[in-house]
């Protein structure tokens, strides 16, 4: 890749990282107003995963995420109008305010859905991949899930079926080594998820980088191997969850983890290191600022739009249940 290309790629990735991070920072800023009446599970700290993976895929490729889905949604759609409106429960939201933060869906942008029942999206993604394969449309599905989801039996059923049927699906474990507040030690009867996955007929990658470019390339390699071999792939990517499990605050005083870990990871913050990389790649501070300002503006305007949008009409309650 030439230097120009690399710069462009990294700018592109930064743009997405910045959007995700700052959309969520906006949530943090406004949540206390108690107008976003929906439980939020923020992705802050993990942005490189969703952005790196989704941007390595084609726009028509599909993603499916968990309750912690803002990052995937935002990088797949790039939009914030319907996003914030949904968090505010407004009729202009992605789901007219019906789904809230935990189940964002935007089919047209390849965002199939998100789900608040741990692991329940995984077989849905397998079915989506099966449909893509049967329709020979070349689309790949990336299904995002937490490390906790791998304890649900349906994860193993799904992995087995995807490998058996050679489906175009990328299993992406967003691995923060926590399920709510429970560490691996009270949840895992094995040493390594990837060591197990390697026994299946699929490709397996893992990394603990926060470098979005690295994740981007790793995903491209995964997609390449998947296409070559017609086998699914599992990627285990470690990250550190900065905030409490649900909500907008830090929770280092709760006692289940230490601030020191956080501070170590913070040194490798995906957004900060990507910004630094841009500078080292020859982007000017003002070029970056301009891009950031644009995104800040987008977020501000979407927030305002969301706040001023109307709530759904009462008759909306009964709409959309059946086709």
């Amino acid at each position, binding site marked *: 890749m030439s230097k120009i290309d690399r710069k462009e790629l990294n700018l592109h990735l930064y743009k997405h990282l910045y959007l995700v991070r700052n959309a969520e920072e906006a949530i943090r800023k406004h949540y206390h107003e108690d107008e976003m009446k929906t439980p939020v599970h923020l992705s802050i700290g993990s942005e490189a995963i969703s952005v790196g993976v989704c941007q390595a895929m084609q726009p028509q490729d599909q993603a499916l995420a968990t309750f912690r889905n803002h990052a995937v949604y935002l990088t797949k759609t790039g939009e914030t109008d319907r996003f914030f409106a949904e968090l505010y429960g407004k009729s202009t939201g992605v789901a007219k305010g019906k789904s809230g933060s935990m189940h964002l869906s935007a*089919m047209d942008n390849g965002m199939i859905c998100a789900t608040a029942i741990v692991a329940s999206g995984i077989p849905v993604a397998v079915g989506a*991949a099966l449909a893509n394969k049967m329709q020979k449309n070349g689309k790949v599905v990336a299904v995002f899930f937490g490390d906790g989801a791998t304890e649900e039996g349906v994860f193993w059923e799904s992995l*087995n079926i995807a490998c058996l049927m050679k489906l175009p699906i990328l299993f992406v474990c967003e691995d923060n080594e926590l399920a709510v507040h429970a560490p691996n030690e009270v949840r895992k009867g094995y040493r390594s998820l990837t060591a197990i996955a390697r026994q299946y007929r699929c490709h397996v990658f893992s990394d603990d980088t926060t470098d979005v470019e690295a994740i981007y390339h790793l995903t491209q390699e995964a997609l390449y191997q998947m296409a070559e071999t017609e086998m699914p792939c599992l990627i285990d990517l470690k990250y550190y969850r900065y905030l409490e499990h649900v909500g907008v605050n830090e929770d280092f005083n709760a006692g289940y983890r230490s601030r020191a870990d956080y501070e170590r990871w913070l040194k490798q913050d995906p957004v900060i290191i990507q910004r630094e990389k841009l500078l080292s790649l020859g982007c000017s501070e003002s070029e970056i600022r301009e891009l950031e300002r644009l995104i800040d503006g987008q977020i501000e305007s979407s927030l305002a739009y969301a706040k001023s949008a109307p709530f759904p009409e009462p008759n909306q309650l009964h709409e959309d249940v059946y086709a």
Partner: protein
Amino acid sequence: MSRSITYRDAINEAILQEMKRDERVFVYGIDVADHKRIFGSTRGLVETFGPERCFSTPLSEDALTGMALGAAVNGLRPILVHMRVDFMLLGMNQIANMISSFRYGSGGLVNVPLVIRAVIGRGWGQSYQHSKTMHASFAHIPGIKVVMPATPYDAKGMLISAIRDDNPVIFIEHRWLYDAYGEVPEEPYTEPLSQAKVLRSGKDITIVATSWMNVEAVKAAEVLSKAGISAEVIDARSISPFDETVIVDSVKKTGHCIVIDDDWIHCGFGAEVAARVSEQCFGNLKSPVERMGYAATPCPCARPLENLFYPNAVSLIKKIENKFDLEPIDLTGEDFYSYEKKFRGPF
């Protein structure tokens, strides 16, 4: 012109015709493609459409259920088959938490056209892990349709409707009905998914039945007619959405109602029927709505107990004799359905 085929063949024909008509339709599930073909109901599918559109799967009901959703929202029309409704319960989370609400959660943008077929009914002493029905539990959840056809005609017409419907439909088939014959047009046709149906007209009492219990009810009605009681038999057939109009109209006419449901009574579908009829026929009812269903126990294996577990034409006749203070009808010479004659082991 008229042609009589079995319920089994009616289901099979519906699937064959729809798969021919619409290449998005496919069938999968545990053992759907083995040589037994789900009691014969998936016959000919692999041969006609290949293993891509009809395939057996791993034993993973939970994942299989989620897959139906994924395939449906991505443009296909899956038919998932369970040899027993009991096995479908392994996919309950997907049904209740995912499938039922997907369309709502997409703001109405994404349809979920899928069918889950599940078999119910007595076998050869299977006892308590192969004998549930649970239609009320599925019907309880908004966003899902639940139907239980009781005749070959309805089996074909309602299955075609289910496959063409843009919503998730749970399609419940009683095993004993598989051998029932009935007139079924050769060409494809649809039957409504949310309407009860009068199987037999009458004026003295309304019997509302589900699934196999319709066979028992019709038989009971025939016997009762000899004692001068004219019973109207209504197949509820559409458990959700449930339109009570046909039933309410009938009870307004007859003034009496018994529900005989192919399931347990407590918190079952029979309660729903009784509640609606009691409310909407208030003032028209000459006696309280009565309910019949399985005994409030797990299903036992031993035949004499199993026979007591299930309601049937005879117990229904007795109930109605009581209601109308009739002399016991002489049942000798009556040919009731007997296991021994029509159904053998091992399964």
